[in-house]
């Protein structure tokens, strides 16, 4: 069986890359054993960090909620196994900065016991109510498993004015080395298809398009078989050309539908919602089996490990454990990468855990990553322009970033750069172009932050000045009123000197207070009372 014929569009640029996928697909998927300690970062994607709902020393069941996020762009975190919370505090996390961040650390008890933590399975899932589905996806803490880890429930909730006519399912897996989606489609095609039906319930699109790169014939076959003869016209498994970065959301939408997602918009703006195949399988498990997102498929590969393979991994498992399961490092391992080789980031240590968005770990040797020569000046060859899938002029952005001319960089659409790395890959001068763009973006962000802070400070200053002026004014008015009343009394008293009158009044008040104080007892210290003179 082959994929259905479907009209395909092209996106500008992109590069053909050696795919390095065969290395990790020869072995069947294995389940990684339960590690003794699991490290769960509280922040695993953009948006707010989750807030712990457990205490140190507390016993938790598998699947129990341990940190919750009540913001819209947030996802709960669940215990991947049963055990004891041994630490809530900073641990090294998989992040480009290489810094530590708040985590919950669970010491596994080895029972892997669900207790009563499993969510009630929904048997009749084909007729599930969309609201119930969204809540379940949210309760299960599901995020996009393609790498970006955007909370999935948000993408099941289109705004009312947006008509979603196409559900695009991303099985492209365009980055070299990564094969976890490939293996998932080969081995769990039914779960992916069931997940797709669930998402259809929520979005009610007219058609569903699976985009799978044509370098994965087995996955395409498995998916086509699992789909069966069902609604062939509305649901299509489409083989797309293997051109990096065709699995980028915007690129995939373009290839499958011919529509261009607006520069600062979302696919929903052109009637499309895009979900990753792994996310669909996770949604299926959450709904039908009642399992929150506590494990995922991870590719452990690269020429720096002895036995590249795919593993079903408990979230929170340290990368070092996975490396051991992949036969350990080779002697000449040079770099450890989380994610793909084009957009992933280098890890400073293998002590960091696998998180929800962690699809791949690559151990690379020098020959795989080394630049073939020194960094040379840009010769304006324009290869980067040809390769840029965003239609930018990378070499101009490079000049502007280098010259710190950020205004010009923005004028040349710096923020449309998706950091796919195509430009750097084709650059004959070996210029680390993406690094320059990140630098420029960060500088612009921090300038923006500073500007906003300065503005806030200015506003505070203005408000304070206004307040002081108001107080001054009010004081002056009070004075005037006071003077007016005194003059009135003077006028009625006739001959008496106004100054004498004021003194007399003050004396009378002081005497009255003294009498008051004596009546209450001498121990009542009220030194401040002298201050509430009305004239003040």
């Amino acid at each position, binding site marked *: 069986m082959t994929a259905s014929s479907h009209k395909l569009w092209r*996106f*500008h640029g992109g590069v053909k890359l050696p795919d390095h996928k065969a290395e990790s697909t020869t072995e069947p998927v294995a389940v990684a054993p339960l590690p003794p300690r699991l490290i769960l970062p509280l922040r695993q994607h953009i948006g707010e960090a989750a807030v712990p709902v457990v205490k140190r020393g507390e016993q938790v069941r598998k699947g129990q909620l341990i940190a919750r996020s009540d913001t819209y762009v947030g996802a709960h975190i669940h215990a991947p196994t049963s055990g004891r919370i041994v630490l809530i505090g900073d641990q090294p996390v998989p992040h480009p900065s290489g810094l530590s961040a708040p985590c919950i650390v669970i010491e596994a008890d080895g029972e892997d016991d669900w207790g009563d933590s499993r969510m009630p399975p929904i048997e009749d899932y084909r007729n599930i109510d969309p609201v119930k589905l969204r809540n379940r996806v949210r309760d299960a803490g599901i995020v996009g498993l393609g790498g970006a880890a955007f909370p999935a429930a948000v993408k099941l909730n289109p705004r009312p004015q947006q008509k979603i006519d196409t559900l695009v399912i991303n099985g492209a897996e365009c980055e070299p080395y990564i094969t976890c989606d490939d293996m998932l489609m080969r081995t769990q095609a039914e779960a992916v298809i069931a997940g797709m039906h669930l998402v259809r319930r929520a979005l009610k699109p007219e058609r569903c398009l699976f985009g799978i790169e044509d370098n994965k014939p087995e996955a395409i076959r498995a998916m086509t078989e699992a789909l069966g003869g069902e609604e062939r016209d509305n649901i299509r498994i489409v083989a797309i050309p293997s051109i990096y970065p065709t699995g980028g959301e*915007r690129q995939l939408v*373009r290839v499958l539908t011919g529509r*261009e997602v*607006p*520069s*600062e*918009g979302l696919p929903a703006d052109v009637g499309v919602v895009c979900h990753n195949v792994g996310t669909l399988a996770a949604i299926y498990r959450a709904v039908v089996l009642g399992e929150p997102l506590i494990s995922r498929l991870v590719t452990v590969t690269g020429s720096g490990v002895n036995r590249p393979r795919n593993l079903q991994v408990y979230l929170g498992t340290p990368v070092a454990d996975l490396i051991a399961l992949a036969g350990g490092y080779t002697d000449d391992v*040079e*770099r*450890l*990468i989380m994610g793909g*080789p*084009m*957009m*992933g*980031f*280098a*890890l*400073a*240590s293998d002590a960091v855990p696998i998180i929800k968005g962690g699809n791949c770990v*690559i151990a690379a040797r020098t*020959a*795989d*990553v*080394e*630049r*073939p*020569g020194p960094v*040379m*000046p840009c*010769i*304006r*060859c*324009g290869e980067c*322009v*040809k390769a840029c*899938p*965003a*239609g*930018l*002029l990378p070499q*101009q952005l490079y000049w502007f970033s280098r010259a710190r001319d950020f205004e010009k960089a923005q004028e*040349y*659409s710096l923020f*449309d750069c998706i*950091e796919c*790395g195509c430009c*750097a*890959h*084709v*650059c*004959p*001068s*070996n210029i*680390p172009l*993406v*690094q320059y763009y*990140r630098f420029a973006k960060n500088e612009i962000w921090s300038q923006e932050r500073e500007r906003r802070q300065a503005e806030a400070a200015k506003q505070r200053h203005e408000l304070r000045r206004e307040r002081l002026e108001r107080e001054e004014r009010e004081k002056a008015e009070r004075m005037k009123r006071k003077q007016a009343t005194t003059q009135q009394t003077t006028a009625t008293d006739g001959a008496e000197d106004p100054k004498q009158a004021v003194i007399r009044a003050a004396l009378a008040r002081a005497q009255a207070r003294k009498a008051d104080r004596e009546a209450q007892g001498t121990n009542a210290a009220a030194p401040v009372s002298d201050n509430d003179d009305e004239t003040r």
Partner: protein
Amino acid sequence: MRFKTFSSPHMAPARSVNRVMGQVLLALIPGTAAMTWYFGWGVLINVSLAVTVALACEALMLLVRGRALTPHITDLSAVLAGWLFALAVPPLTPWWVTLVGVGFAMVMAKHLYGGLGYNPFNPAMVGYVVVLISFPREMTLWLSPSVIAELNLSLPQAFTAIFAGRLPDGLTWDMITAATPLDRMQTGVGLAHPISEIQTSPFFGYLGGVGWEWIGLWFLVGGLWLLKRRVIGWQIPVAMLGALTLLSGLFWLINPEIYASPLFHVFSGAAILGAFFIATDPVSASTTPRGRLIFGAGVGALVFVIRTWGGYAEGVAFAVLLMNMMVPLIDHYTQPRVFGKTAAGKEG
């Protein structure tokens, strides 16, 4: 285990500057061999001399500027600039002309602007134009392919001619030199001779001039190979030769007795060499895809204009330099459309 971290991407790039330059040099070999065949050893001596001078100037300037020698000496860009200069000058050009031209190209046109990647003008063409204007007599010493074939100057004889300015006994410069077909055409048309008559002279072949047309064809072979290897883009050569063909064709159709045919234009002088090897110099050409079409078409049009109405018989060097000047403007107005935005740069 701890690792060093780097910014993505983590895949080794596929190209390098010296590979690009190296492929361009390889592609020059057929045309250079053809030139040697028709014009004798002088061509090879010139190439070797120019390359040596270019490398020496490059090294000197790198030292003066306090830059590391290794990545730049081996990037082959100096070799290419010297080589292209040598192909532009007459085959028995005195050594000091090459020295001045290449020296000017490397020192003034390349390094004083910041070296590789920073020169707004094509260095080889700057050097060529300097000697063309400064030493007009020496620059007209083009040989006649038919005479050279008969005389067959040996390597030592060519060497003596270039370095000592002496020809073998019994030969004079007048005997071996001849105006180029482009020169003959311009002079003939200037004297109001009809082109059909001009072309009856034995210096003209089927396409352009005798010998010259074959040299052009061999440069074309190298150029097409570069296109196939995607070392250069198609825009500049196609636009340049297209514009030249179109304009010359138009005027030729109006009056073939005063205006030479498009075939003659394309296969004479440096049109093909210029289209594939000179105008495509990435550093000094436009970088946007549409910009390259405009740049190439501009070069082609200027070549025709200079050849037809200008003071020089050949205009490739001037045309390239004039268009180099336009590059910032062209690049500014030909930015590609950003994905997800309209052509005007707004949200699409």
